[in-house]
């Protein structure tokens, strides 16, 4: 973003740009809190803040549709699912003693590397692209829908096949217990014993 802004006068930022940077910093802070917090549910709630911050960034870039989808899917559903899962565990109120694993340095390395790769790719790809915030809205539902179904149909369909596969897989996994029991009763009682 800063690189792109540089060509347009980096030294006199507009209000939107200032807001963008501030929200970005807040989002980054929330994201850091998410990964460093020792309280599991706090981490999930910081994730809400981070995802909401990203949604605000989308809004500032006039991608309204993407912003609301971000809120709907990530804040409204994914985090709820996450919290649901956390409530099913024995996550205590207060710090979890086993929240840290010995792999934190490895994780940090991987995270830093992937972040660097992503930033590099994005900066390299969109170096000269400039979003004109004052002109026609470029992230409205209409524009997004048109580009999605005109230029990105194949990835879209591939994604839906992937999701379908995940769905079928989930059903198979959840039904497996009953199947195994039935199989054990009919064909291989010894295997059934082992599994129990």
């Amino acid at each position, binding site marked *: 973003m800063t690189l792109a802004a540089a060509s347009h006068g980096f030294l006199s930022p507009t209000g939107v740009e200032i807001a963008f940077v501030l929200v970005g910093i807040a989002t980054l802070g929330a994201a850091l809190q998410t990964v460093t917090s020792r309280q599991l549910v706090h981490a999930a*709630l910081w994730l809400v803040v981070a995802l909401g911050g990203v949604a605000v960034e989308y809004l500032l870039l006039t991608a309204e549709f993407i912003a609301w989808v971000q809120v709907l899917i990530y804040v409204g559903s994914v985090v709820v699912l996450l919290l649901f899962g956390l409530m099913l565990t024995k996550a205590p109120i207060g710090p979890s003693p086993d929240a840290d694993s010995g792999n934190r340095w490895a994780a940090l390395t991987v995270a830093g590397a992937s972040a660097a790769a992503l930033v590099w790719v994005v900066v390299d790809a969109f170096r000269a692209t400039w979003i004109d915030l004052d002109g026609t809205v470029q992230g409205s539902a209409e524009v997004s829908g048109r580009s999605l179904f005109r230029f990105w149909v194949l990835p879209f369909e591939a994604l839906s096949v992937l999701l379908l596969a995940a769905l079928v897989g989930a059903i198979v996994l959840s039904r497996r217990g009953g199947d195994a029991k039935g199989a054990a009763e009919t064909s291989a009682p010894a295997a059934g014993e082992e599994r129990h």
Partner: protein
Amino acid sequence: MSDTLALVLRLLAVFVVFLVFPLVIGQTEHKVMAHMQGRLGPMYAGGFHGWAQLVADGVKFAQKEDVVPNGADRRIFQLAPAVALLPYLLVMVAVPVGPHNAVGQALDAGVFFVLAVMGVGVLGSLMAGWASANKFSLLGGLRTAAQLLAYELPMLLAAASVAMAAGTLSLPGILDAFHWWWVPWQLIGGVVFFTAGLAELQRPPFDMPVADSEIIFGAYTEYTGLRFALFLLAEYAGIVVLSALTAVLFLGGWHGPFGADGLGWLWTLVKTVALCFVVIWLRVTYPRLREDQLQKLAWTVLIPLALAQIALTGVIKVVIS
């Protein structure tokens, strides 16, 4: 400058509506429920048929001690009521009440906005349920989450059907494209949307997350005083928002048999209030659904119905275009 002033005035109007309407609905619920059960309801507060009962309740809540349980996660516990309440205020900003831009703030993807933000409100219940350090609260939070996951999908699909019919995601845009025959056309979607919305608000008969006979008051068990009142206010604001959204999406909002221009806002109001009445009516009439029945209703009835509605919308849309 006048633009800013107009915006501030609009937001102020939305805020006033947000503060007044839930109380009106709450009072209506007191009285309607009482009469449906052969009682009178509040009769003394304020003199005339207990009109000030909720004001009195508010004063009572304000006087109560604000207790945070010892083992609770203090900050999350205190933050939860605000998280539960504020989304409904935000949604109200986007609901159009009349033609010619009579809306707090017109949004391009209004349908997505309202559904997304309404979903966030449930996060408040989850935070409350987890942070209370109470097993009943935790169970209530779990049920809330399960219910939200089950009912968000049919609600979205039903709303998507209307958006498909109108060819736009903007709420005023949908109303501009509205014709009277959309009501029978989108009837199934409307029923699914309303039902799923009731479930999302945890209103009876979908009030398993706050089932008092089993888990006291679910996620709100540990709350007292003003924070508890905020949760209640969130519930009634949710009723207003849900009714207004159903009226806008499925009943044609400001469109009416007559008085199209001048009385548009009145039509929206009448439809919203009628739907609020239905919410109360359903609460009085039906017993609570069991948890498995709840999930079954969502996954095996509402989602197929919503999908069928989308198919129907698509077919008719292709036929008439």
